[in-house]
């Protein structure tokens, strides 16, 4: 009985969809979008909003008729800030749930944990997070910002304003290590000097000695690449020890909204280059925040990764529609190769670069004041993810499925 009702509805919706868009016969089947994000564990704070961003975009698209006449159906799993869960659930969404596309991952360790599985099972994944850059993989689209977008804007600006002696503290895993390499490179290119570098294991929460080490060399600029809620304790402790070096970051404020969570002025004098945060003062951003708060009134903060996740759904929609409703990876990549897959996101216009399958961004310099209010001393429009393409990654020609760094660039043909 139930089955026959289900079949009846299905036939009805088939006919309905057929009448509406006159698409192919399978058109009423929903497009399945897998979502693997950390909704519990150490990273949950920064990533629950990403799930909400995907849900908001999905609701909007479904209310307007779906993608090429097909509704989006979300398949959501909580990856618990645990890399092995990513591998487990990535296999599940690709093999059992047979999703058309997966939106997955916060930490770079988790991305590198699941990426081989996406490659092996020939899946198609969006990584909607800022990271250390360099992933040249035709199975991936990266909508987050990368070092050439965040550091090549931030570091020269800060060195000019405060001085050329730079100190880095970074989380000790692939993200922190490779980002620190970028900092070294950009500091050197701009005639500066690295006066110190410390890598801190994830989960460390006590920083007295780190603070003393920084005080010893008195840097002009401190780059903080701290990840996770435990490491965020650094700011309270540094402020308590009266360490007042101007700080720059690619992950703080825009990801963990530390300026909202800590008592002022522990984050004063922090400069972060973000591609979006809820304080961005444009009409598009304000409308976006209003929509968001209407659907998720208790959201503590809309960070850049939440916005990336939101506009990523629209990027995917455009690709599928321009591929005449096909969700096959080859068809979608043929659309990307045209080089004009762009959407008007809350941050501004974003476009997918066909060589690297990364996204161009508007980069906002966010400055945290004494009272933890945000101002934007500078905005850079349309900053392209140029490094991979210049270094020799060209996914329109060859798909190496690898991650490169400045010290390990793509092999020259």
């Amino acid at each position, binding site marked *: 009985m139930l089955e026959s009702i289900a079949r009846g509805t299905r036939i009805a919706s088939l006919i309905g969809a057929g009448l509406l868009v006159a698409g192919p016969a399978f058109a009423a089947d929903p497009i399945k979008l897998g979502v693997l994000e950390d909704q519990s564990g150490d990273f*949950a704070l920064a990533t629950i909003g990403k799930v909400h961003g995907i849900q908001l975009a999905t609701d909007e698209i479904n209310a307007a008729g779906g993608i090429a006449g097909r509704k989006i159906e979300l398949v959501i799993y909580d990856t618990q800030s645990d890399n092995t869960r990513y591998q487990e659930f990535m296999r599940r969404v690709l093999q059992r749930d047979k999703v058309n596309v997966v939106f997955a991952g916060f930490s770079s360790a988790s991305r590198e944990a699941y990426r081989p599985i996406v490659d092996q099972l020939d899946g198609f994944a969006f990584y909607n997070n800022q990271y250390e850059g360099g992933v040249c993989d035709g199975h991936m689209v990266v909508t987050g910002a990368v070092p050439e977008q965040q550091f090549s804007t931030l570091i020269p600006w800060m060195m000019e304003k405060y001085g050329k002696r730079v100190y880095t503290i970074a989380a000790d895993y692939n993200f922190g290590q490779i980002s620190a390499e970028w900092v070294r490179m950009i500091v050197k290119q701009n005639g500066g000097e690295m006066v110190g570098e410390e*890598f801190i294991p994830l989960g460390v929460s006590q920083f*007295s*000695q780190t603070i*003393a080490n920084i005080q010893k060399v008195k840097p002009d600029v401190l780059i903080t690449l701290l990840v996770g*809620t435990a490491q965020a304790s650094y700011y309270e402790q540094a*402020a308590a020890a*009266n360490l007042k070096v101007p700080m720059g970051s690619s992950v703080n404020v825009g990801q963990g909204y530390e300026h909202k969570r800590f008592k002022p002025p522990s984050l004063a004098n922090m400069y972060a280059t973000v591609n979006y945060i809820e304080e961005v003062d444009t009409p598009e951003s304000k409308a976006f925040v209003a929509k968001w708060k209407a659907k998720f009134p208790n959201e503590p903060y809309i960070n850049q990764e939440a916005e990336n996740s939101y506009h990523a759904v629209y990027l995917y929609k455009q690709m599928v529609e321009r591929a005449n409703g096909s969700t096959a990876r080859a068809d979608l990549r043929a659309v990307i190769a045209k080089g004009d897959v762009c959407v008007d996101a809350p941050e501004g216009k974003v476009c997918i670069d066909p060589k690297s399958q990364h996204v161009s961004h508007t980069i906002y310099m966010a400055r945290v004041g004494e009272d933890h209010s945000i101002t934007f001393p500078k905005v850079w429009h349309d900053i392209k993810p140029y490094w991979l393409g210049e270094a020799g990654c060209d996914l329109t020609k060859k798909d190496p499925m690898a991650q490169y760094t400045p010290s390990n660039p793509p092999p020259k043909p």
Partner: protein
Amino acid sequence: MDFLSSLFGFVYQCGDAFAFLVLAACGLAVIFGMMGVINLAHGEFIMCGAYVTVTTARAGLPLPLAILCGGLAAGAVGLVVERLVIRQLYDRPMDTIVATWGLSLIATQGTLIVLGSSVQGVGVPLGSFTVGAYSYSTYRLVLIASALAILAGLYLGFNKTRFGILARATIQLPHMAEALGVDTKFVYSMTFALGAALAGLVGGLYAPTMTIVPTMGSTFIMEAFVTVVVGGADVFLGTSPAAAVLGVVKAAMTSWQGQLFGQIGLLIAVIIVIRVLPKGISGFILRERG
């Protein structure tokens, strides 16, 4: 002067590492070291204390009182947990692992669902002071003093008060103590609650210096267990020398090579100590004495 200020810096860092180890471990030393309950929810008692402290402090209570509230709240939770779960498991130490681990998962996820992913902190009080080229947080000295005060309190409590003697008797020979008229169930539950309250107090003490999130307890748990294991069964004679040894190793390695080597040094020191002294430092001291 330069030498003196570096020396002060080193002593301060050692004291800071020592305080963290003592405070992380003191509640666990009572519950695990003395009572033998492998309490994997120790970090969540700390988290509970921190949340209560921050909430009451933001509601207007002065910080020292708020910290006490944190301790009392965690103690009350400990009393309930003991009555409902732990009491059934005193003879089954392996099962306490599973039960307390389950409690810790429920507490972490429950806090995330009910209270959200983070609450705003209260900021570190008392400002800073300067010695030579370095400036230090004054509140860290309060933490060191608190660690010493808690150690002294535990020593006096377990050796000089009637409750302390009854507690030790109950744990050493429960049937004999019962035969002599001690209400052993009551003593067990009060001892467990004391351990939980100490954990809560520590959560309160560290709350101003940390991000207040549901998973914050996990940053204490490794240090707590290694300190108790290295220390052995005696709360005072175990925890304080263990924390002193490990604190100096950790501070020295961290100042030499950074945080990663601090952790490596700490764990290597632990392996050496438990290889050489299987009953922990207090087992060694007490055997010498006996």
